[in-house]
């Protein structure tokens, strides 16, 4: 029931964005693509306790795969999204296989190394990726053969919003499945999970693949909506920023990923317009404030407020 309300809220917020900011739909579509990336990080960091600073490798894999397919004549948008998801899943399998060999700090360093390697590969393979100029000239066909991707980005935005909602619903099922509970257990105590007779590595690897697919969908959406794929989509900077968005919003709830992305990117947009030189300073200050005042992130803060509201109304259940 709570999740139904949550999903209605996401749709309502998405539609409000559509009506309120008709001139900023490109930015809002970008927010959705990044939100998918941040959701994919939440699966790994928030539900499995594996820290990563290289998640854009999976996002970029989806973006480039969709971009290259599009340039080579695959123009059907849903097919492109599927290609992005598949490429992200394969990249996730690869990344997980490498990262899960290590633990803690070494694992984090590996994630950075992997995204740097992906970045270098995309840079060097310029025949396919366009290198530092980016991959341009994507011409995406109409959605369902009917809806053209228009200049104002209306189709792209609504398409992105629908994708986000579908992915979000699917992930709600994933995290509340037996598999999702097992991951939560591994996050808290892998030794206990082993003593329950479950292996840890294949479970985490499975989550990496799911996470890769989600990040890949985000990347493909970014490619379709902007019709260009740049090296920034496989950058360390994007990886780090999206982890910051997750921490800002709160880990391990899926909602936090959305809240964090919207707040971070909204803040970035607003503050960079006012003061383009110091906006990152402001974001840093905001982050420090959130981490110190609400360690559970902004969504955790919200939950606390609603929970205390319930308590005063209904007493302890």
């Amino acid at each position, binding site marked *: 029931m709570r999740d139904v309300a949550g999903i209605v809220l996401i749709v309502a917020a998405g539609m409000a964005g559509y009506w309120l900011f008709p001139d900023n739909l490109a930015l809002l579509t970008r927010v959705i693509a990044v939100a998918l990336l941040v959701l994919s990080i939440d699966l790994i960091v928030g539900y499995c306790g594996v820290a990563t600073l290289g998640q854009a490798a999976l996002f970029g894999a989806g973006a480039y795969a969709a971009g290259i397919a599009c340039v080579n004549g695959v123009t059907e948008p849903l097919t492109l999204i599927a290609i992005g998801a598949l490429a992200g899943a394969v990249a996730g399998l690869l990344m997980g296989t490498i990262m899960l060999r290590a633990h803690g700090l070494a694992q984090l360093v590996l994630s950075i190394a992997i995204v740097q390697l992906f970045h270098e590969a995309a840079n060097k393979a310029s025949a396919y990726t366009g290198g530092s100029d980016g991959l341009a000239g994507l011409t995406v066909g109409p959605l369902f053969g009917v809806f053209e991707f228009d200049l104002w980005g209306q189709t792209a935005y609504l398409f992105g919003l629908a994708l986000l909602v579908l992915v979000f619903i699917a992930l709600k099922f994933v995290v509340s499945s*037996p598999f999702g*509970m097992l991951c*939560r257990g591994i996050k*808290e105590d892998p030794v206990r999970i082993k003593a*329950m007779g*479950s292996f840890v590595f294949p479970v985490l690897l499975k989550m990496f693949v799911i996470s890769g697919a989600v990040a890949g969908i985000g990347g493909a959406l970014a490619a379709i909506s902007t019709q260009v794929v740049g090296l920034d989509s496989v950058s360390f900077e994007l990886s780090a920023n999206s982890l910051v968005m997750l921490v800002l919003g709160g880990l391990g709830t899926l909602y936090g990923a959305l809240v964090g992305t919207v707040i971070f990117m909204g803040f970035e947009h607003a503050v960079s317009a006012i003061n383009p030189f110091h906006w990152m300073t402001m974001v840093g200050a905001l982050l420090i404030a959130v981490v110190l005042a609400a360690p559970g992130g902004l969504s955790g803060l919200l939950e606390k407020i609603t929970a205390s509201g319930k308590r005063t109304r209904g007493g302890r259940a």
Partner: protein
Amino acid sequence: MSDLFRVEGLTKNFGGLAVSREISLAMPAGERLALIGPNGAGKTTFVNLVTGQLQPSAGRVVLNGEDVTGLGAVERVRKGLVRTFQVTRLFSDMTPEEHVTLTVLQRERKATRILSRFRGNAEVAGEVEGLLGTLGLLEVARRKVGEIAYGQQRLLEIAIALALRPKVLLLDEPAAGVPSSDTPRIEQALERLPPELAVLMIEHDMDLVFRFAKRVVVLAAGEIIFKGVPSEVAANSRVREAYLGNYANARSVA
């Protein structure tokens, strides 16, 4: 060779230090064995060797006639060699019901499923309720573990172990850290363990040991110095020297 479980010459060296030396013991089904010994005698190391958290330097672990020494901890659990922990290892933001459900699903190899509901299986739910009922945990079944009493957490450790349907159960100090007012509940749970289950219990509470165990093994400095029935333990001079002397002193002070 009708023993359900035995270890032969189990030895573990950390560098030059032998923490387990040539430990051999056998347990038939239905065994109630207490493993006692002073602090640092190597009791928990022994459990870690048996369950596969540590690999022995020498020796064998045999379950049901099968050598499981080369298997990892997970495979041993799946074969029925199950332990509890000296300090509870539970998921603080999950409920007892969630712990036991996850364990039962794992035993049924259904815990890695994505396309099913966590509470979707009525059979599993019934078994979970039964287990929680047996251990008197029904009233806290849906409270987070971080919010329930430590004695109840210890009972939950046992519930998780039983949910795995073990053949051999190793209880590492099941009453450690539990206020004495709650020990009767732990003891009651121990009395109700399935009769065919072979149980090895490490415990410092001698009253509990003497009431629970049919046999006692005493470990000192990584070596077995005594095997026998509880009534003989107190009379054995080596044991007294190594262990019970301390216990008697500690008791008179307390």
